[in-house]
């Protein structure tokens, strides 16, 4: 779906001003710190904020300054942060609510397929107020799909969930575009979530778009300022080279070398995977090291050293074409004599990408 936006919304001091063309295919992340206007933008798309500017989707006008297609006539469905299931209906009733009102012109979505994809079969008879947070969100996703929307909007659907559940549901969300033939716009302020599932990324800040593009390139471009120092990192794409069943490790070939990771035993050999390295988990060495516990040593070349306020500096490395970030102390930068062009080894502890590797 192609969206042409020219939006301007005011909420007290906050102003959203977005003029952008978005080509939605697969999963597009709407990313930015809290208060950037992500939810406001999503609500405008859903039709909850008439009079906030112009939205055109695949050549059809959804709203401009004078008219607005009401929310119930837009071919979108929303998965909210808080699920918003209907308490007077059970799980099956919530699914039926959407199925009965489904858009016959939308992508064909079979109920049995939805139930299977989201693992809902055991929940169908349950009352809504007996569901856990993760179950609520799975039902909410299923309900939204059954309305047969042409675009699925997700507003931080995992924010209330614990780590384990989050990982499971992220995996399910990643499958949706292919399985049900619809694009997903996924709002999140967490780099981890986005790095795992998003094909493209639209970055928002202070009510303005800062840019859009493929996830890997965009996360690299945005830098620590947007992604936060602790979350700052990089994404490497590679394919599964082999599994070490005995030690439960998987070798991922990222081009310049092999990364051993414990979190990818489920991926098939040859499958393409994405590995996220946090800058704080990457150390640097001038030589290849022997006799250390660190499994992964990738040859790299220093691109740039950025000193920060305080003790730390961020080093950007060229690792066989991919950019890897390392966050080390300024003292280490001086003692190793790090500067652009220098050849080094990036050391990554294997545990660093535990659970951070997804298809």
């Amino acid at each position, binding site marked *: 779906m192609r969206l042409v936006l020219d939006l301007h919304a005011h909420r007290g001091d906050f102003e959203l001003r977005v003029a952008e063309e978005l080509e939605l295919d697969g999963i597009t992340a709407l990313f930015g710190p809290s208060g950037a206007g992500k939810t406001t933008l999503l609500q405008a798309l*859903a*039709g*909850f904020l008439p009079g906030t500017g112009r939205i055109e989707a695949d050549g059809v006008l959804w709203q401009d300054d004078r008219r607005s297609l*009401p*929310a*119930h*006539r837009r071919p*979108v*469905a*929303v998965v*909210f942060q*808080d699920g*918003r*299931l*209907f*308490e*007077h209906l059970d799980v099956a009733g919530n699914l039926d*609510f*959407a199925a009965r*009102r*489904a*858009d016959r012109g939308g992508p064909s979505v079979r109920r049995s397929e939805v139930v299977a994809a989201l693992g809902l079969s055991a929940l169908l008879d349950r009352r809504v107020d007996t569901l856990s947070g993760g179950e609520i969100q799975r039902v909410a996703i299923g*309900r*939204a799909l059954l*309305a047969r929307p042409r675009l699925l*909007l997700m507003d931080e659907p995992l924010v209330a969930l614990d780590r384990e559940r989050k990982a499971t549901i992220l995996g399910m969300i990643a499958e949706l575009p292919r399985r049900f033939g619809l694009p997903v716009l996924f709002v999140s302020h967490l780099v981890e979530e986005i790095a795992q599932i998003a094909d493209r990324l639209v970055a928002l800040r202070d009510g303005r778009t800062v840019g859009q593009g493929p996830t890997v390139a965009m996360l690299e471009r945005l830098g620590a300022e947007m992604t936060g120092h602790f979350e700052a990192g990089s994404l490497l794409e590679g394919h599964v080279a082999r599994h070490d069943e005995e030690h439960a490790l998987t070798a991922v070939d990222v081009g310049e070398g092999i990364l051993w990771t414990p979190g990818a035993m489920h991926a098939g050999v040859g499958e393409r995977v994405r590995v996220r390295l946090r800058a704080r988990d990457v150390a640097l060495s001038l030589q290849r090291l022997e006799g250390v516990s660190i499994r992964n040593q990738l040859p790299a070349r220093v691109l740039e050293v950025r000193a920060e306020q305080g003790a730390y500096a961020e080093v950007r490395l060229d690792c066989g074409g991919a950019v890897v970030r390392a966050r080390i102390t300024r003292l280490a930068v001086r003692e190793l004599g790090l500067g652009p062009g220098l050849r080094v080894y990036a050391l990554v502890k294997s545990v660093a990408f535990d659970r951070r590797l997804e298809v």
Partner: protein
Amino acid sequence: MLSPADWDAARTTLLLAAATVVILILVATPIAWRLAFARGRWARVAEAVVALPLVLPPTVMGFYLLVLLGPAGPVGSWWVKLTGDTLSFSFAGLVIASCLHSLPFAVQPLQNAFESVGSRRLQAAASLRASPLDAFFSVALPLALRGYVTAAVLTFAHTLGEFGVMLMVGGNIPGRTRVLSISIFEHVETLDYAAAHRLAAALLIFSFVVLLSVYLANGRYRTRVA
């Protein structure tokens, strides 16, 4: 037991209460809906107007209604032209007065119920392609069901107990506008305490049974009026 005149009064009272409940549920729904979702100063003004009968002396309200509904009043004269009958001192006039007098008892529970349904769930319904009317009947109404029960019971009970407005607007015409509360007053006036006791006890027990059955049916839910 009860005299034929008392039975007449009981019939008039029940009929009046039932009519008030039916009409008020229909009228109070859109008002409560608007108040639940409206913001700004005018909504608060409207809330105050709706709540007026709670604090106004029934005689004040009855007086204004009598002026309004009387054959010379703006509403009353129109009614005479339309039906040939007067509104004041008639059952129809009693129904109108009773509806206005009990308005807050219907609006406030419904407004509370709609507020707790909340615009978030209605947004969810809209995003699932439910039109506003569809969302009202398929989401808001079932979720607000307890508010409706509360509104109906409070309106019913309040109408049973009303005295001042009834007397001002309806007078005391046996078989037409004489309601139970006025009958009791009349028995006391004529020093027939035994008859007054019978009616008062009947009204007391009946009201209690109605309220108790609603509380039992609603379980933990509490009837609330501001």
